[in-house]
């Protein structure tokens, strides 16, 4: 058998006590799109970071075109022709898009930076992706003013400007809109034609089937198998990823008659005149194209974004939170869209993260804490969420993504919320953790809580929710329920195509 284009053998990496990679092997050919799949914590990101030189492996070997590659940092991999688009963005916010694209590879003239040449390098790619920027070419705009999807596209252009032979896309599509993904996939096709190896990490099955030729499945820090995508039914692909089938699955509604949350004409920074009701025990989804004000709606309800007008009633009583603190007092709970920057104090222990929203409830005179009582409360919340942890005193950062998200949700149990607002809670967590998470959401609802949950994944909404509110440009434009609640209707409603026009 000839030597593969890219070959990684016996790669090991430990962070403290956690094994991220336990002797993983990996091989891929030029001119293919190769997916790397697996649950969170399976080591797929770490494996690719070893390749790009960001992570230093404890052991193992990387060969590119048969030659050993021992990068001491991103500089070496850049020279080897490897570029990466990471999950956490690598852009300098204060820089313009062009300055970001050429960062680290600035063209020079007479020893100084050559700005004209920089533009000449950067513009073709920005123009190629113009559709992804809503038709414009934001060359001189600062990254600061771009939305998350656009930033991700800039990140992709940045990798492409480096003219890679190997392109790593690590969850690069997670925050992209449909149109942006389409442009990206067109470019990926072109790169494949040109003989570039594209390595692709994603949790979205549809994307794997759309562009990937081969897929390597990882679990527990090693590679399980490598398959040809076209030859395998989707079901088997999922099973390989999870180890067992763990789809969320539909369940009977637990909605009761009593209206728990009533919203009338709510307007905020990115919400316009939203009106709807959520009954006790009901799970209501918030869907639509990405960035239509779903997150803003939840944040406005929670008092984290300023409400311009409108009325919100919880159990018939008006609530008007001007801060999350007041919202918590009114019986609201909020799971923000980004667990790392909003949901958790990553460096603090699990115990403290769990206790934070409900500290005053257990404190003596609102001040004195008993460690025993705190531990009991945290343990019970963690148990309800089936959270896996070593010790409650470990920093929450040591947990895997799915378990971190369980802490973000679990910390609200002790406040006994009546309304739970969740902003894309399953983003970036693996299938099994997702199933467990939504299981808990169902339990919450069954206990009479009203749940309002947004998601970027329509399938998730269909499986979990009793009803889905579809948002467009800050307005609630549709209320999809009953027989109509299918992925197809949601997509159609999101794009404001009437339901009858899309047959399925």
């Amino acid at each position: 058998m000839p030597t593969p284009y890219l070959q990684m053998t016996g790669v090991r990496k430990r962070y403290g006590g956690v094994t991220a990679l336990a002797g993983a092997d990996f091989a891929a050919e030029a001119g293919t799109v190769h997916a790397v799949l697996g649950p969170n914590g399976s080591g797929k990101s770490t494996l690719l970071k070893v390749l790009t030189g960001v992570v230093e492996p404890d052991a193992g070997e990387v060969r590119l075109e048969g030659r050993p590659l021992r990068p001491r940092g991103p500089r070496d991999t850049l020279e080897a022709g490897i570029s990466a688009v990471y999950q956490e963005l690598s852009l300098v916010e204060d820089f313009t898009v062009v300055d970001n694209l050429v960062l680290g590879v600035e063209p020079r003239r007479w020893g100084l930076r050559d700005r004209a040449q920089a533009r000449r390098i950067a513009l073709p790619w920005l123009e190629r992706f113009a559709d992804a920027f809503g038709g414009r070419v934001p060359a001189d705009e600062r990254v600061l003013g771009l939305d998350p999807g656009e930033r991700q596209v800039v990140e992709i252009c940045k990798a492409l400007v480096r003219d890679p032979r190997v392109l790593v896309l690590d969850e690069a599509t997670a925050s992209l809109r449909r149109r942006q993904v389409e442009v990206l996939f067109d470019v990926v096709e072109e790169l494949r034609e040109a003989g570039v190896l594209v390595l692709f990490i994603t949790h979205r099955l549809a994307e794997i089937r759309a562009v990937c030729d081969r897929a390597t499945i990882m679990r527990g820090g090693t590679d399980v198998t490598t398959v040809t995508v076209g030859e395998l039914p989707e079901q088997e692909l999922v099973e390989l990823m999870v180890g067992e089938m763990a789809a969320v699955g539909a369940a009977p509604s637990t909605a009761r008659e009593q209206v728990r949350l009533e919203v009338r004409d709510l307007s905020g920074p990115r919400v316009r005149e939203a009106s709807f009701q959520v009954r006790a025990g009901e799970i209501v989804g918030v869907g639509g194209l990405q960035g239509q004000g779903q997150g803003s709606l939840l944040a406005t309800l929670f008092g984290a974004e300023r409400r311009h007008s409108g009325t919100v009633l919880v159990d018939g009583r008006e609530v008007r939170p001007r801060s999350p603190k007041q919202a918590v007092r009114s019986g609201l709970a909020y799971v923000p869209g980004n667990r790392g920057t909003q949901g958790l104090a990553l460096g603090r222990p699990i115990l403290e993260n769990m206790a934070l929203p409900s500290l005053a409830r257990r404190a003596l005179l609102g001040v004195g804490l008993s460690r025993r009582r705190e531990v009991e409360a945290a343990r019970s919340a963690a148990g309800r969420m089936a959270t896996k942890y070593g010790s409650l005193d470990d920093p929450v950062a040591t947990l895997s993504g799915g378990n971190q998200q369980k802490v973000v949700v679990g910390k609200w149990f002790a406040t006994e919320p009546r309304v739970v607002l969740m902003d894309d809670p399953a983003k970036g967590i693996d299938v099994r953790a997702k199933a467990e998470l939504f299981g808990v959401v169902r339990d919450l609802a069954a206990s009479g809580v009203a749940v309002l949950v947004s998601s970027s994944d329509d399938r998730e909404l269909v499986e979990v929710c009793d009803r889905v509110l579809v948002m467009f440009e800050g307005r609630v434009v549709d209320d999809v329920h009953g027989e109509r609640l299918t992925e197809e209707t949601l997509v159609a409603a999101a794009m404001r195509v009437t339901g009858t026009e899309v047959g399925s």
Partner: protein
Amino acid sequence: MSTVERPRAAEQGDNAPGRATGVLRRLARDPIVVSGVAALVLWGVAALVSPAFASWSQIVTLLVLASFLGVIAIGQTLVVIAGGEGIDLSVGATATLAAIVASRHMDGSNEGFVGAVALALGAAAVVGALNATGILVFRVPPLVMTLGMISVVYGFIRLYTGGRPAGSAAPALRSLVGGDTVAGIPGVLWLWLGLSVLVIWLLRRTSYGWRLYAVGGNPTTAYLSGVNPRLVKASAYVLSSLFAGVGGLLLLGYTQTVFLRLADPYMLPSVAATVVGGTALIGGIGGYLGTIIGAILLTVLDSFLRVLQVGGGGDAPRQIIYGLVLLVVLSAYGRQKRLRQ
């Protein structure tokens, strides 16, 4: 086939001796242990060079000296934990202010003692409130705000005293610091002990303490969990000034009369003691126990270098060695994260 096997891979200890070295390694990385050992070693060396160091009275004197820094650094620790680039460089000026106000109103007698103390601490609290306003309302970076506050406070002192501070410490204050002892230990050390227990309890076992760490660790998370981060931070700055004020009063009891810039030498050492004790300037990490050790370490170092009189007793060599030792102690652990993992 050239497999790269780095020594790090062999670190995983499953057998008993391996685990023991693991514990040792963790201890060796614990800032409190490192500074504690460094302080003991320094003290040991000092005792060898100058046997007087080992005497009980000398130890008490050292601890009394450390208590001034230790009390002033209480607030520094709170402010640094509260994060957001939190730092309070105005503690020295605030301590001086409290001492000057108190000394004028005590004027060497016990009569106005309580009033003078209240007035002094009130003045200190005003400084803290101003800091908090500048930092939280006008969003001035803490370093700059508290730096600027120094000149405002000293400017006020100059105006208030006309350049010549008046009065002296009340006898009660003097005896607290230098006089009567309870069980052979001066009152000021008992006070420091009491404050330490209070602060450590505050940080570890109160909702305020946990909120402070949460705000320092991630203010957005704290906010979205129903905490008011601005209120928490503001209270940290006010507390910082209050404890600086207490420190200033203790200093007054020690020096008995005041002078301009009395507590100036405590400004940056209070930060150093905090950091040496393992409280990271990024916020959300650390505690007061470490700061106590840090304050003792810096005081022992300073006294030792004074006793040694390197280079004929001039100030210069002492300064140089002080700086170098500080760098060595810090590099033992006070590291920032590597970019490459």
